[in-house]
């Protein structure tokens, strides 16, 4: 019989979680709440004797000196209560570990139907709290109705005997699994089928699918297997495989570009091939360190003689937009499976993140599903639990606010892995399933969750989007699987491995079957979370924490033994063949048989019209006189949401686990500020380092996406150079997040312009990668950054996100002891600016603060930059520099302040020779790329100036002993703020968040 166990802190102890909720509720809603305490409720849905119950209560679930627990309601003396629990079928990680703990404590296995459901009861004190207010707290802070249910109680409604009662969110699918078949008599039937089943098939694909299923040889082969018209398993498979998410149809599309000003026309056929694959192949020719690119789950570069590094970037925007915590958690845990599924499996050594959301204090009329503040809190927390509980350091990240992300947020997640060069005498980066190998599914079980995630993320989010693809990741299960698979790898038990991500088994099995030359799958063998799933659901479910592994039949026993030791479920669910077919059966009956060559057939490319209107025709430079209060302007800039301190996020993430941290995300003895790049030491017994940087600059997209992409790539490169990583070893990862580029006269009237923006960004990617010789090790595109939001009067608005490129760059440092940081080191050190400052304020933070976009977008000039980038490398090799810092968003003024704050030392800088023909504000806040701020010991001044002879190196001044930042120009002091003033401005906005 099920019982409810309630657990709380001893009354005299503080309740940190409750206090956190209290803070949030006050901040979010301005409510007068005195205190909040939280009770943990466990609904134990299993049979226990009274003795057993007493035992698990005292030994497992109640700490004798800090907690109280009871089978009776513990709640009393409150002014309002909210109960929050999961809906049926939502992953309950704490419930699962509770079952493990109970089994261990009682030393007996629990029956398969036993379950523990965890939930929270929040008890509020505050005399004037109304049920309406509590309902708002429940709805907009504590519970997300997609995955959770809540109940609100006033003291009057509360039954002190029953409490919340017994709430058991069992999944009960009274359903006999069936396979449906569909005769496709016409294209219209197929189109209608696609619409009804959310298959998102394109019109142009329909004839190819229909034709395939009417070929005589196909028909006879199918008849021999007992198959007639296509089944739901087959159609769902094709829909997954053809989705934009899996197949990147946009990036493989054909763009007809027209410059409306000049009349110039150009066709960009297959941007992926032209702008990513081709340059990368060319560049890789001259870079022997490029090990494996463009085919596996992640890219591979050489680290040293014995190891390679593996890198991957992903975005998880649509799910995070619906359920922020679950979406970002699933995103980070999911991207970790990419290196794990690369080559024969890489160990995870780092994670990164990038969040783009609406303003945290947004108070405008649009009503996104989740307010940006709640959304941001949720995505931060998801990456925290996903990264920390995986034992993978979250190395660095970025946060960018803009109102256009109200439509859909961006959640970028990236992963670094380490892969042995050789595994049992075979190349670690190679993998291939062989006919005869068993196909095993490892890790989590399959449920109805995550169905149609892929096709849903290929659509614009709206009220009708199926919410079933929202999931909760389970880092604990995955960490066990990670440890297990690496040991299996080292024993030589793995011939092929890939992750089960978007598209679930259909995608992982389909792709690996293509490599092997055939595959058969027995769906009834797939372990399920609960009975009643149809075969097509098992086939495409995106239930998390799963990998697909090919194992030689003779190795199955040792593989299973190892799995048992690691407490990981591994099940043989199929076999690789040489039939050329993908064959799926359920209970011995065929339910799919498709020639693997079908997907390689000539599906027509997607076609896009792209029309570019140059910025001169859309925008102009503002008419702006010189600033009088320079100090006020700098302090205001430091307080801008996109420039100010966000230490509260960084500190929630364990960036040091594994002991490899050399340059941390925050740098500086006095006041840690964001460093240029992070540096890790993947092998603790070596001095080689791996440097990693991340850049994004969506603001410039409003002017020209070509320069947006170019500046972003240049920034990622400079970030690496600034810490001392070599240019020749830089590899890149491109993650595009774009609004829908398909023109529609009513739904997307500027679709052609957005398509042209994409074309121009792809051109920049191609040009910059060629110029800096950066192979693109990995990348991904996410194409539907749009949302439909109700406004003040219930009218719907389409909100499209700024075209955004996340660019991640990685490089290998031969000796990490030569690394340089941005903080001044000593009073009297000489300070220099390297690189030219031009009046390039278009899209700058300074213009944005004043309400302008402007026209003068920062422009990358590689032929000018590269020569002194080389000299800078040499200066760092010679250990000449005391500090080095790239200049990014905010410009010279902001970054002089940050280098000073980090060191706790002031600076005096004369900007007379910086952009001398422009106003002082241009010298201070222009965002010209290609620039660095350097400092050297006075005795090194001569050497430095000699080394940079002929290069744009400008002496600015020196580091001061005191805490004054003095900036002068043409004999006049522009400002002299103290470090205390700078720090106060920089930390004001988010300084009280923890």
């Amino acid at each position, binding site marked *: 019989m099920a019982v409810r166990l309630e657990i709380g802190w001893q009354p005299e102890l503080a309740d940190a*979680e409750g206090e956190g909720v209290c803070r949030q509720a006050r901040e979010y809603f301005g409510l007068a709440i005195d205190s909040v305490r939280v009770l943990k409720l466990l609904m134990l849905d299993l049979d226990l004797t009274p003795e057993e119950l007493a035992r698990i209560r005292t030994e497992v679930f109640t700490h004798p000196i800090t907690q109280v627990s009871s089978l009776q309601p513990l709640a009393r003396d409150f002014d309002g209560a909210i109960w929050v629990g999961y809906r049926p079928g939502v992953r309950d990680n704490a419930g699962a570990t509770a079952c493990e703990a109970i089994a*261990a404590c009682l030393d007996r296995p629990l029956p398969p139907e036993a379950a523990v459901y965890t939930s929270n009861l929040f008890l509020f004190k505050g005399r004037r709290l109304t049920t309406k207010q509590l309902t708002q707290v429940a709805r907009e802070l504590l519970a997300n109705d997609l995955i959770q249910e809540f109940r609100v109680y006033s003291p009057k409604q509360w039954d002190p005997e029953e409490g919340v009662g017994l709430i058991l969110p069992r999944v009960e699918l009274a359903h006999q699994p069936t396979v449906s078949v569909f005769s496709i008599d016409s294209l219209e039937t197929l189109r209608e089928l696609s619409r009804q089943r959310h298959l998102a098939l394109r019109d142009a694909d329909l004839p190819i699918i229909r034709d395939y299923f009417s070929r005589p040889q196909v028909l006879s082969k199918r008849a021999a297997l007992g198959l007639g018209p296509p089944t739901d398993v087959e159609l769902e498979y094709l829909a997954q495989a053809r989705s934009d998410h899996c197949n990147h149809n946009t990036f493989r599309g054909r763009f007809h570009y027209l410059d409306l000003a000049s009349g110039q026309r150009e066709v960009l056929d297959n941007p992926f091939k032209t702008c990513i694959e081709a340059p990368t192949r060319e560049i890789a020719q001259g870079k022997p360190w490029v090990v494996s690119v463009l085919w596996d789950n992640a890219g591979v570069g050489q680290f040293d003689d014995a190891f390679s590094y593996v890198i991957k970037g992903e975005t998880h925007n649509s799910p995070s937009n619906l359920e922020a915590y679950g979406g970002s958690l699933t995103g980070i845990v999911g991207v970790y499976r990419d290196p794990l599924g690369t080559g024969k499996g890489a160990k995870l050594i780092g994670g990164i993140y990038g969040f783009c959301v609406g303003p945290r204090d947004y108070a405008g009329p649009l009503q996104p599903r989740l307010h940006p503040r709640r959304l941001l809190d949720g995505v931060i927390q998801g990456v925290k639990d996903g990264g920390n509980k995986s034992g993978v350091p979250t190395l660095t990240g970025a946060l960018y606010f803009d109102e256009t992300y109200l439509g859909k947020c961006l959640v970028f997640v990236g992963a670094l892995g380490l892969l042995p060069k050789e595994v049992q005498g075979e190349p670690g980066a190679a993998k291939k399933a062989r006919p005869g190998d068993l196909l095993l599914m490892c890790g989590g079980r399959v449920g109805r969750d995550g169905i149609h995630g892929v096709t849903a993320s290929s659509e614009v989010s709206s009220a009708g989007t199926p919410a079933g693809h929202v999931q909760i990741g389970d880092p604990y299960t995955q960490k066990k699987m990670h440890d297990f698979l690496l040991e299996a790898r080292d024993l030589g038990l793995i011939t092929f491995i890939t992750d089960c991500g978007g598209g679930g088994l259909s995608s992982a099995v389909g792709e690996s079957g293509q490599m092997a030359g055939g595959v058969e799958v027995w769906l009834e063998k797939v372990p399920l979370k609960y009975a009643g799933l149809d075969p097509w659901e098992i086939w495409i479910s995106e239930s998390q924490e799963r990998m697909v592994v090919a194992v030689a039949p003779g190795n199955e026993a040792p593989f299973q033994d190892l799995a048992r030791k690691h407490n990981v479920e591994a099940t043989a669910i199929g076999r690789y063949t040489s039939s050329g077919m993908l064959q799926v059966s359920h209970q011995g009956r065929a339910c799919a048989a498709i020639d693997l060559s079908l997907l390689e057939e000539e599906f027509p490319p997607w076609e896009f019209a792209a029309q570019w209107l140059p910025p001169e025709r859309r925008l102009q430079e503002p008419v702006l006189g010189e600033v009088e209060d320079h100090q006020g302007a700098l302090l205001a800039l430091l307080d801008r949401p996109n420039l100010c301190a966000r230490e509260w996020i960084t500190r929630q993430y364990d960036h040091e686990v594994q002991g490899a941290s050399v340059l941390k995300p925050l740098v500086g003895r006095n006041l840690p500020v964001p460093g240029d790049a992070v540096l890790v030491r993947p092998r603790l017994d070596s001095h080689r380092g791996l440097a990693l940087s991340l850049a994004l600059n969506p603001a410039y997209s409003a002017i020209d996406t070509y320069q947006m992409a170019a500046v972003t790539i240049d920034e990622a490169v400079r970030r690496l150079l600034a810490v001392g990583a070599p240019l020749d070893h830089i590899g890149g990862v491109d993650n595009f997040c774009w609004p829908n580029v398909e023109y529609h006269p009513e739904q997307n009237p500027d679709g052609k312009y957005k398509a042209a923006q994409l074309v121009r960004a792809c051109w920049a990617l191609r040009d910059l990668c060629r110029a800096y010789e950066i192979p693109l090790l990995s990348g991904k595109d996410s194409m539907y950054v749009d949302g439909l939001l109700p406004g003040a009067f219930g009218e719907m608005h389409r909100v499209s996100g700024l075209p955004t490129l996340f660019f991640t760059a990685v490089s290998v440092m031969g000796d*990490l002891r030569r690394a340089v940081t941005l903080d001044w080191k000593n009073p009297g050190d000489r300070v220099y600016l390297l690189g030219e400052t031009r009046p390039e304020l278009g899209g700058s933070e300074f213009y944005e603060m004043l309400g302008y976009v402007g026209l003068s977008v920062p422009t990358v000039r590689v032929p000018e930059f590269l020569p002194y980038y080389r000299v800078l490398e040499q200066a760092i090799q010679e250990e000449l520099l005391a500090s080095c810092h790239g200049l990014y968003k905010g410009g010279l003024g902001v970054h002089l302040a940050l280098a000073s704050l980090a060191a706790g030392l002031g600076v005096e800088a004369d900007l007379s020779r910086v952009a001398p023909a422009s106003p002082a504000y241009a010298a201070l806040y222009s965002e010209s790329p290609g620039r660095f701020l350097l400092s050297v010991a006075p005795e090194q001044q001569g050497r430095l100036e000699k080394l940079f002879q002929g290069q744009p190196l400008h002496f600015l001044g020196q580091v001061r002993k005191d805490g004054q930042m003095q900036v002068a120009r043409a004999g006049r002091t522009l400002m002299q703020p103290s470090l205390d003033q700078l720090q106060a401005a920089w930390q004001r906005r988010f300084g009280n968040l923890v």
Partner: protein
Amino acid sequence: MKTENRKQKTENPGPRPKALVLYGYGLNCDHETAFALHKAGAEAVRVHTTDLLENPSLLWDYHLLAVPGGFSWGDDHGAGVILALRLKLALGAALQEFIDSGRLIIGICNGFQVLVNLGVLPNLPGRAGERLTALIPNDCGNFRDAWVRLKVLPSQCVFTQGLEFLELPIRHGEGKFFAPGPVLAELADRGQIVLKYATPSGKPALGRFPHNPNGALLDIAGICDPTGRVLGLMPHPEAHIAATQHPSWTLEKEEWRRRGEPYPEKDGAGMAFFNNAVSYLQGSPSPDRV
């Protein structure tokens, strides 16, 4: 008792004492903890928790047990609770015998949480094995990664001999040391409080955030058992075994350079914990005779 059929206790640890570093089930600092012990001169072996639970007599092959940081069983029902329960059921009294025989145990972060839930800490006389202390959620309400300054108190503790002040990172969500007043008093009286959070200038943190990062009572960051051979601490000594792990090592390097000296390959301050343990094990002819 599953450990009864145990092997002969190791007579001579030899030049390289053996250290068992637990891993699996969500623990995650096992590699670097093993590396630190290895660097200190121990023969460190990562042993999967399942292997130890199924074959508890393995324990007797080792002279030091390290329970490293991580999130064992996801830490969903109190950090370290489930691993402690599993170890208690499988090892029973063997752990106490392990300690009594002169061997060492260190629990770091999640490992500390495990040791207090096992009751091998604080192991007060007359109340051996009881759960008398707890590590509860940080007062700041969140997980926190930050470097802290620690004051080392004079004690019996094998691991901290010769240390006075040092800097280490903390990385936890549940690290607030809690015990009832009388237990705190007894810990202080018996010299079992080993590490306390301090201000950058070395003064007591007095509970102030961020010097005391979690609200720990009496600023306690680590305690030992009455023998001094069992240490539990929230900060991570294994994360400061090389100078370049320190957040401002580039500043220190620049200072060396200005003196005209090459930047030396110094160990980080956390190495002392592991060096002390290994010297202790090497110095005692047989841990059984301690």
